């Protein structure tokens, strides 16, 4: 059992998840990326502490177990919010050029540039 391998794997998954979070427009993709980052940190939390006579340390195990349950409940709540957002807004994407308030401003700035 070589912890170093898992630390690097956890770091890689954290990076991939963060990239997905920054890049994705659809809210559910952001949630998937967020859950990836969570799993990476849970992996880190379990691998880093030294194991006690061969068995992993029970205290981080209990913390991560609580974390997994809370991650599921927050994901469920976020999904409910997403469905409501979709119903109100017509699409479930968060991106500057899809945001109605920003579109108004951008059109105004375009008009100003056009007049110059």
């Amino acid at each position, binding site marked *: 059992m070589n912890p170093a391998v898992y630390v690097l794997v956890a770091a890689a998954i954290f990076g991939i998840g963060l990239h997905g979070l920054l890049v994705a427009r659809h809210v559910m993709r952001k949630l998937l990326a967020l859950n990836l980052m969570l799993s990476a940190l849970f992996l880190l939390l379990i691998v880093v502490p030294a194991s006690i006579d061969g068995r992993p340390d029970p205290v981080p195990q*209990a913390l991560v177990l609580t974390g997994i349950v809370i991650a599921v409940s927050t994901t469920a709540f976020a999904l409910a919010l997403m469905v409501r957002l*979709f119903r109100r807004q017509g699409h479930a994407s968060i991106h500057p050029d899809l945001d109605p308030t920003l579109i108004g401003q951008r059109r105004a700035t375009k008009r100003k540039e056009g007049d110059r």
Partner: protein
Amino acid sequence: MNVGLLIDLLLGLILVGLAVQVVLGRQLFRSIVFYVAFGLAMALVWARLGAVDLALADAALGAGLTGALMLAAFRRLIKLDPAQAVTSGSAHTALALLIAVLAAGMVATIGLTAMALESQPGAAGVAVFEALPATGLGNPVTGVLLAWRGFDTLVEMVVLLTAFLGARVVADEGWAPRSTVASFDLPLLRTLVAAIVPLASLIALYLLWIGSDQPGGAFQAGSVLAAAGVLLLLTGQLLPAPTSSAWLRLGLVLGVAGIGLLVLLPMLSGRPPLAWLGRGALLLAESMMMVSIGCTLTLMFAGAPGLKDGTR
């Protein structure tokens, strides 16, 4: 190059490969499929690391429930507006890539340096192992969860309840009576339900019972109950309903009440938690938590305030 290292490398490769596919998958449906496979691979990694409680929880909650919840939400999007539901696309900016690489580097350095530190003598884990026999429990994780950090578990049950209340308020008029039923009706499903649901509840009770001495416990048992609930919802045996019955509301609050009593009573009387109440009280509190976790997650899958019998 011993075989253990080879196994770790392969597991790591599979995990990272799945994570890449989750993020770079062109379709949303495909990303959800790979996220469930990622949950399965995480369960394998937890088993390999010897953290069996986490393998149980991640298999049931990470792969099973989260996947089912995401598919249910995805299906609601499709029902509302098929075209919009799937347009996602993403702006691949180089900046995001740079930030991701730097973050990964940061996490790697934190992990590696923390690993190099030798653990202090009074580390909590060692103390747990020494004090475990006093509580009469065999499984250290359950010991930590219920005996020493019982308050943490109480707060967690409150978080679960709040998440459900929030989801219920937000999805107020969103649920449709048959929104969770699978879009086909096969005779196969009825026999499936008849075989799996009783077996799932039996396995849930089994996991609850062995929880105090072996890996298992209220969370894992509750998620198996929730999986059975999801199956009933998928096959139309249970249907989402606008109002929740008194029994259901009791079931939702049971968990917080159970763990609250188990934690606060000893705290008020100032005696050590488990030694005073004994294993019977622990089992009672855990079964109440199991029931409420099962009800909460099933209702979240249904996305509705209550449930009603679909067969009548």
